[in-house]
């Protein structure tokens, strides 16, 4: 993890569940708190909805892109470049796609994110990368984990059975870290 997250005790993790739209004001409020907070924006779910507001927030921001380079590369690439225009922003990329992200500069950090297996989850990857100083995690748009709702904020009726596999993985992680204060916003 980068130095900029070193003083943070709180993380805001943003997934892509259907409740994300409703909660954007609460995310911005959480990130404006006096508690030093780091943003972990999965797939740029937040940045692509409120880039101009994020430009005004000085806190450290990390983009975790699910399987960067395996989807529509042009779209993903543009999202990463846009995210990296934010103050104190870093792209946390899967080392397996290093060749596709290597030229993005020194604000790209590579990690082995293959540990979550076939049901790759950006949220899970973010949780595994959090610095040990983080003792409070606010999760937005993680509806599959809480209420088993696999609709996404992008496609209202989208339903993907693999989401339940991801949810199992994340729930297990939560139960293995009982000292952290987990706060899910629905």
């Amino acid at each position: 993890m980068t130095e900029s997250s070193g003083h943070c005790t709180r993380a805001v993790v943003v997934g892509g569940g259907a409740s994300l739209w409703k909660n954007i004001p609460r995310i911005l409020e959480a990130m404006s708190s006096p508690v030093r907070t780091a943003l972990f924006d999965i797939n740029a779910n937040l940045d692509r909805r409120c880039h101009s507001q994020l430009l005004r927030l000085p806190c450290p921001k990390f983009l975790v892109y699910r399987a960067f380079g395996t989807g529509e590369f042009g779209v993903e690439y543009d999202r990463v470049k846009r995210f990296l225009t934010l103050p104190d922003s870093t792209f946390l990329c899967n080392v397996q796609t290093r060749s596709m992200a290597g030229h993005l500069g020194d604000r790209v950090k590579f990690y082995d994110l293959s540990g979550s297996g076939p049901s790759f989850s950006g949220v899970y990857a973010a949780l595994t990368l959090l610095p040990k100083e983080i003792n409070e995690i606010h999760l937005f748009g993680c509806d599959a984990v809480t209420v088993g709702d696999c609709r996404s904020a992008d496609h209202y009726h989208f339903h993907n059975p693999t989401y339940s596999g991801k949810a199992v993985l994340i729930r297990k992680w939560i139960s293995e870290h009982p000292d952290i204060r987990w706060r899910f916003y629905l």
Partner: protein
Amino acid sequence: MDLTNQIPILRRCTSIILTAGGPSLSKFADEIIEKLAANPLACLFDVNQHFSRRALTKLKELDNLKIGFSMDLGMAPVLEKESADFMALPNAWYVARAPVEIVSKLFPTDRYVQVPSAFNAEIVQKSEGVLNGLGGSLSYAYSAIPDHIEVVDIYGADSIVSPEIRSIEGGPQIEATTGSYKFYREVNRPGLKFLSEYKYITLHV
């Protein structure tokens, strides 16, 4: 169920703090008290008195509306002392499905509201002579959140996001994949999902 007819003061409340009985509840005890103290119009929904039995002294100092919920009250000798202690708190009400004549042996019933179950909880025999409405009390409390309330904080509902179900009272953790405990989750996740369509819900675990 719409409790605002039976408990008119509930109409004045602006938010609900709902406490269930998962192990994470102990982590948040001070925070819950602080939230209630900071907002006199926040109402406590205390499921099976898991929270109030741990914070009785502090709750005595708070005038917030407090409503106890249980599917089990009156079904067996459970919660007898806890419900009576709860009803001795200022501005305390109780909602259960037990008949008034049974509840009247536990505490005065002028602030007791009898409501049949909104969700079909599964009744199980826990041990000789002890029955439980498993999974019911939490969903029972969900279903009592009035329409005008937009902000709900839920504490101690660990089973929603945890692979196992454990109680703050201790005991072995139970894989929540079969039988009654699977039912518990199958009742509570849809209830929470329904609420989240209309309200701002925060689940603290």
